[in-house]
């Protein structure tokens, strides 16, 4: 079973929130398989909350850092409200579904650069992340 580890357990911010969601994913057999297969680093930035979190996936372990990881394969920037709504967006092939109003709104935010994703060539890692964080 994959393990989720907080790099700084005393911090208790977005890192703890994401660790909570990832730990719940690790308890779900289908998501645990995805989590187990993930390799690479992701930084999630929330500019309006002035918070950045780094996720390092390696061999069934996800380490959650309370800061960005320099040179992350993927960097995702989005407003706090979008991040909270993101987990409940229905997905299609690991990306927000354009068949739903929420998915279309998210795509609009990508096009208007309110949501910025760099490292799109690591699409597999992005879709895996979306899948494990999804509560829809």
């Amino acid at each position, binding site marked *: 079973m994959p393990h989720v580890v907080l790099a700084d357990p005393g911090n208790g*911010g*977005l890192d*703890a929130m994401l660790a909570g969601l990832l730990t719940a994913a690790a308890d779900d057999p289908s998501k645990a398989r995805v989590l187990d297969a993930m390799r690479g680093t992701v930084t999630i930035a929330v500019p309006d*909350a002035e918070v950045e979190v780094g996720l390092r996936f390696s061999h069934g372990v996800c380490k959650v850092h309370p800061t960005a990881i320099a040179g992350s394969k993927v960097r995702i920037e989005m407003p706090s409200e979008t991040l909270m709504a993101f*987990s409940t967006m229905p997905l299609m092939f690991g990306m927000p579904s354009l068949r739903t109003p929420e998915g279309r709104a998210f795509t609009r935010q990508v096009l208007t650069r309110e949501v910025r994703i760099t490292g799109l060539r690591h699409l597999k890692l992005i879709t895996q992340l979306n899948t494990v964080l999804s509560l829809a």
Partner: protein
Amino acid sequence: MAVFPSEEWLAAFVEQINSSSEYADAAATWEGDLVFVYEKEPDKGVDEDVYAWLDLWHGKCRDAARLEGPDDPRATGAKFTISAPYSRWKAVVKKELDPVKGMMQGKIKVKGDLPTIVRYVKASNVLVDLTSKVETEFIDEV
């Protein structure tokens, strides 16, 4: 005008919750109690941690109480505990601090099942908005 945080303020907050159709809609399927911990700040007149317990069920508040302390079974058994120093809560009530951003920044600590909190983030926001509708006097300003 009720003094925050007091039993009287909690009662006024419960009244706001139970008269809000927006909260009733957003939390229609919510089942579970929560404890707000207003952590002590003696220099601001809050000499000890204050525990406010709310039993929230399907968009209504069925019961609420100011607890004696962390050992009260309602505190130990609560589904969620949300803690912050008094002055942070004051900022939330005055709408100077967005609670979601506060949680992301670690200024407000949440204990409980995160997926549930994320699913009900709209209900949480409405709940927090309702605090600002209570006519409030702050204990450090009385």
